[in-house]
């Protein structure tokens, strides 16, 4: 584990412990707990599983992550205020479990990606340039597998913001809470993520012989 990865890991551990030790605001009866669990938590299992799968690319790991998240959600249910944003609360737990447990278990060597470093240390300054020669019709003509593969090829931090925003419809504010980052960083990370996605889509388009402005 590199120095940067260690710092990042320790910070996320602290955030996770803080989340889980938040003052318990409620003292729910068993019936209330079951109601919340069945009516507010379980309806999100589809989104939760797909989020877990898109983070890990592995069915068993995704199942473990989701199961672990629901067990933590039940254990700390008194920290959840009934009727508030259960989906965002669950996503935050899943994301923290992924960082703390799945990444720790991963045998892959930690690597520092330039884009990732830039995201953390130069987080809110974004260069908005006209760089894309990707055509609208080319994007619309792509099939699901090409779109999914392009998304899946992004580094996990970039992939995550696109999943949360475009696939799950979270607001910037909700994403900031789920990811424990400022809203400005959400905005800049999303912008970079979409630019990287456009690069991937452009390269797919060229490989597949779709029309791009670059071919002239």
């Amino acid at each position: 584990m590199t120095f940067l990865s260690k710092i990042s890991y320790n910070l996320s551990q602290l955030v996770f412990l803080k989340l889980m030790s938040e003052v318990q605001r409620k003292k729910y009866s068993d019936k209330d707990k079951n109601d919340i669990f069945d009516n507010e938590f379980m309806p999100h299992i589809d989104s939760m599983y797909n989020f877990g799968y898109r983070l890990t690319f592995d069915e068993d790991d995704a199942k473990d992550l989701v199961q672990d998240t629901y067990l933590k959600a039940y254990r700390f249910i008194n920290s959840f205020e009934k009727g508030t944003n259960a989906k965002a609360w669950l996503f935050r737990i899943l994301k923290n479990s992924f960082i703390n447990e799945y990444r720790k278990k991963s045998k892959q060597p930690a690597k520092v990606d330039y884009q990732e470093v830039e995201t953390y240390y130069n987080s809110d300054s974004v260069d908005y340039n006209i760089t894309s020669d990707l055509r609208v019709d080319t994007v619309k003509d792509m099939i699901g597998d090409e779109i999914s593969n392009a998304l899946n090829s992004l580094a996990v931090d970039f992939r995550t913001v696109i999943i949360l925003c475009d696939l799950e419809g979270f607001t910037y504010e909700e994403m900031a809470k789920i990811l424990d980052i400022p809203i400005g960083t959400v905005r800049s990370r999303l912008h970079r993520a979409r630019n990287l996605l456009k690069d991937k889509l452009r390269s797919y388009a060229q490989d597949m012989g779709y029309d791009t402005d670059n071919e002239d």
Partner: protein
Amino acid sequence: MEKDLNPPERKLKCDDVSKCFQLLESILDGQEQSDSNGTLDHKLAKCQPCFEYYNLEQAIREVLKTKCTKQPVPSELASNIRQKIEEIK
């Protein structure tokens, strides 16, 4: 859409790409108040780079939302979770 590219009244160069593109992204992500949409049509009608950027960003959001492959949830997952919950009660 793209059929309407480059009408004579559109500027070919945007005066403030950073500000405009950031605003367009916020609108597409539903972060701006509805009155921003009133100025949107005007902006897109006047500026070619903004028009193209908006349409491409909109198309990307649309295909992500509608075409990304979804994994079916394993049938046993919900019952496994309920079983584990019963064990810790």
